[in-house]
């Protein structure tokens, strides 16, 4: 019982690897492409981040959450003023948005929803690996995932030897690990053992102590690593606090504070990736959007459709990519939420295919069980 998950994680991958299951790719000769995912936990309100300014209904339903100083993207959509880096990049064709999109999950539980946004599955808690981990595995990219968080996010699980960066206050002598490494015997110690392996192979720059409370410093280190041609190709940031049932606010307020965090991370990445930004895709991920209507506490409830914020030089052009479902009562999901007309997994699958140099059809089968997911790489990304 206890070993099934571990088997999949370690044993499973090794077997697949050895049996030559993977298509041969010569990624070494190609320019390294980075994929960065920023998880926005709690339910990011797509209509706060990218408000539909062309529809008066939104203002009517959200009297206490009105946004002023919205940055205008086009006649239909605006951008939250705290997302200024996206606006700057928008003007250079390096920012875009997918709107009215979500994972195919219509329950309204954070825990089920976050589990599914990471596994990419249909039944909560059924899959024990993340779509990004499986995508890396299917692309034979091992040991090149980097999480900027203390626990390893589910999103990256499924491929061995990922790293995370969230340094402790002091330098730790890794020779201590070498000394007890051989004590980890037996199947029940496999997971710890393989994690110790990863620590032992860490680059020196990751062995320093820094202030892990400072997200900007962490983003800086991530940028440094991603810039390195032999460094990680995938990074995952984890933000929470998007669950604004009360005092959600407009330009300022709880949701704006969180968007400002996203803006800060993307700003640092953009500044420090340098030329590597041209070969980078940054995408956000959330479990659901929020209700159209404000609630009793001037916040919003758990909803359905949300938006994906995207940045990076691998974007095709600046655009709000959407099949807009409308805000009339009958157009809303269950009469209350923005509908989702694009399965967000199609966006992620296409992004992986671009960054990992894989056929999207192949990834769709390997990562998402062959689910119907449109190939959006032509529409959204440079290929």
């Amino acid at each position: 019982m206890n070993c099934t998950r571990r088997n999949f994680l370690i044993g499973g991958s090794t077997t697949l690897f050895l049996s030559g299951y993977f298509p041969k790719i010569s990624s070494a000769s190609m320019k390294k492409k980075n994929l960065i995912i920023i998880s926005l936990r709690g339910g990011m309100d797509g209509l706060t981040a990218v408000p539909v300014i062309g529809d008066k209904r939104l203002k009517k339903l959200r009297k206490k959450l009105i946004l002023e100083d919205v940055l205008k993207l086009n006649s239909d959509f605006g951008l939250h003023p705290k997302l200024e880096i996206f606006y700057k990049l928008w003007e250079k064709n390096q920012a875009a948005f997918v709107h009215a999109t979500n994972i195919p999950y219509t329950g309204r539980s954070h825990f089920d929803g976050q589990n599914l946004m990471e596994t990419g599955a249909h039944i909560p808690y059924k899959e024990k690996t993340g779509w990004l981990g499986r995508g890396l595995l299917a692309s034979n990219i091992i040991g090149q995932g980097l999480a900027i968080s203390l626990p390893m996010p589910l999103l990256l699980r499924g491929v061995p030897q990922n790293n995370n960066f969230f340094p402790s206050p002091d330098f730790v002598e890794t020779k201590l690990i070498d000394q007890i490494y051989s004590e980890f015997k037996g199947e029940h110690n496999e997971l710890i053992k393989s994690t110790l392996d990863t620590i032992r192979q860490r680059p020196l720059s990751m062995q320093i102590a820094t202030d892990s409370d400072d997200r900007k410093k962490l983003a800086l280190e991530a940028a440094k690593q991603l810039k390195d041609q032999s460094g990680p190709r995938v990074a995952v940031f984890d933000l929470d606090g998007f669950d604004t049932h009360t005092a959600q606010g407009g330009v300022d307020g709880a949701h704006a504070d969180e968007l400002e965090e996203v803006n800060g991370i993307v700003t640092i990445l953009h500044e420090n990736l340098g030329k590597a930004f041209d070969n980078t895709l940054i995408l956000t991920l959330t479990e659901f959007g929020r209700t159209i209507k404000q609630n009793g506490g001037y916040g919003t409830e758990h909803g359905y459709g949300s938006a994906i914020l995207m940045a990076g030089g691998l974007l095709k052009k600046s655009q709000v990519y959407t099949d807009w479902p409308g805000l009339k009562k009958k157009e809303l999901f269950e009469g209350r939420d923005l509908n989702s007309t694009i399965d967000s997994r199609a966006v992620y699958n296409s992004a992986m295919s671009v960054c990992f140099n894989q056929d999207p059809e192949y990834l769709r089968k390997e990562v998402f069980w062959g689910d119907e997911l449109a190939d959006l790489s032509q529409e959204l990304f440079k290929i």
Partner: protein
Amino acid sequence: MSLKFYRRVAFGLSPNEKQDKDPLNWALNQLNSIPDLLWPGTIPTEKELRKKYGEWVYGDREVLRKKFKNDKNAYKKAKDELRIKTGERYFELNEHAIRHYQTRHSTQPVFERFWLFWGNHFAISEKDFLAEFSTGPYQREIIRPNMVKTFEEMVLSVTTSWCMIHHLDNSESFGPNSKKGMEWRETINENHARELLELHTVSPNAGYTQEDVIQLAYIMTGWSHKWSRKNLETGDVWFDQEMHQKGDKIVLGVKYKNDAKRELAKVIHDLATHPICIKFISTKLCRHFITDEPTQEMISPVIEAWNRSNGSLTEIHKAVITQAYKYNETTHKFHPPEIWLMQLSRMFDLSIPLSAKKMNYAFKSKPTSKQRQLSWILREIGNSPYRAKQPNGWSDFEIDWVSPELLLRRFWFASIELPILVKSENNSHDFIIACLKNNFEDYENMASLIHQFRFGTSDKDLGRKYGVICNLPGVLKV
């Protein structure tokens, strides 16, 4: 019988404790009564701390923000002074001290392990100023006294506690057809209702629908804090009839007649005695004490005890311990960082927490770095107990706790911080060996491992010894 049982169900044995001839009875006998809190320092009541919470939010929101609206720096300074005056930076440190003093010294450590379990099952996650003022006293005054009652009584207490109601926004939930709902055109906030179903009782396995969540939220409308101009949201919990949704409600196919405040106890009775709830919680208990994926065979006796005793937590706890004993040799369980720290503290007689005298606070300046030490360690090892990220609390799965950074931090703590916490009279190699002997059958292997590495006698080498020992597979896991 393996010594690891003492770590599986408690915190290991301190240097002055010896193993019992009958470990199972040793453990079972600890579950009949609620041990007193031993912390010799101040233990403020929930009500006192809520008053402080009120002073803090009122002072900041209603006074300082208005007074200094044009002077950011003066505002910041005044706010810092208010933090000190209201203990905003202090009380959480004191709560950690109370908690860790208890797990370090309690003569009923097995009971304490269940205390940690239930506090995490009915978790209060990081929100507003709950960790600063309320989560600690909630653990002491809501969770703890209910641990010798029934599960149903515990759920009712938790659901109507100020802390949980604030945590899950129930005061913002208005019945749309209630007096206030109609007047103010307000509606429900589903947050609390959903978590009562999903996390606290039946779990999604019960197959409830969105309509069930809405109906339960209707039943819960009115259970709110009493708002006042002076106390803002920190008033006592009451049932506000004018917020309550009128009419009959149906949850999971059961009809609850329009009965105002009495509806809640009725629905909680049905949820807390629901077979799927019993199975869900029994599984969680076995997961905590036995192994990540407990088998039906492990769980069944707990479910039977639950049914036999009508949900008596004492009987349920005893069944869990009996199962943990039965499977002690054949299963493995990885411990999250805080329990690991508590075990190291007990086994090596560390000076955690700081003495009550030194924890004393005069509300005149910032807490000292010594006073902040334990809380800082907890945060750095990734497990600050009253700051779970989400209402589902801290994970009990190994996979959520094993990452390069989290493991590195255990090495960091054991080799760098732990040696500072070893009492000066214990500062010797022999002491380490004696502690190992007291807690591990294979202490000789562990001792020879240290020997092999040829560590010297410097402070740094002592740290290295602890760094190695505390992270051996048999210490990270039972």
